[in-house]
């Protein structure tokens, strides 16, 4: 159980930290004009030149490996919903690091997600 908790924390903090860094990189890259393959490739090329993107990659890699290990130990219907605890960590990150407005409705939604996750984890 200790190992599962440890790898779950790698999964949650790795993915949240990585996603926040990537979000910062994507916001700096800017929105593509159209969702066409050529423009998406150009957008991807520009995003790959952003330092924030590359700051997020090792954290995402850590969380990916933790996911693989957890999937070898536990059922997918436990691992994936339990990793949703990252919604709380991520919402705090979005508010205090990315400066997003998190309304009461959004917080309520996140609270319901967390309650749902707790029920799922209890099985």
């Amino acid at each position: 159980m200790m190992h599962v908790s440890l790898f779950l924390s790698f999964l949650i903090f790795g993915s949240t930290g990585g996603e926040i860094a990537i979000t910062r990189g994507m916001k700096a890259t800017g929105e593509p004009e159209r969702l066409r393959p050529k423009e998406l490739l150009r957008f991807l090329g520009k995003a790959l030149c952003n330092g924030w993107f590359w700051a997020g990659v090792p954290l995402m890699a850590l969380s990916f490996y933790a996911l693989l290990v957890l999937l070898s130990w536990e059922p997918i219907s436990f691992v994936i919903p339990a990793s949703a605890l990252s919604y709380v960590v991520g919402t705090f990150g979005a508010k205090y690091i990315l400066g997003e407005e998190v309304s009461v409705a959004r917080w309520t939604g996140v609270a319901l997600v967390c309650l749902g996750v707790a029920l799922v984890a209890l099985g």
Partner: protein
Amino acid sequence: MATEGRLRVKTLVMVCAMVVCANAGDLLLKRAMLQIGAVKLSAAGLVHAFRMTVTSGTLWVGIFFLCGFMLSYMTVLSWADYSYVMPAGAFGYALLTFFAVVFLHEAVSARRWVGVVLICVGVLLVGQTKPRTTSVAREALA
């Protein structure tokens, strides 16, 4: 108003692409890890697990879907809030639990189903909020 509607529609499309790719990827990863077996936490066990994972075809197909997820995720984050996109993608949990029952024959209790429903209601609430609360640059494509 039209701009807001357009923003919601394109955000929804990209979130759907994210959910489909992420679920297909996760399901294939689970199938690959079932074939490989439980990872042992020793140096030899980790090296063995690494060798088995890099030679697993199922795992690579899973990674292909996860790349599709990553591209749609990066694209949607260029215009929408992280605190909107992240929970909005959670409606895939219902789909994933359904897939786990149907394809992997996992047992899912009533309590776990209630949890999945609460997650979906939470996601719907988040979906009612504005997808973008911060300013965003438009990419210069000239």
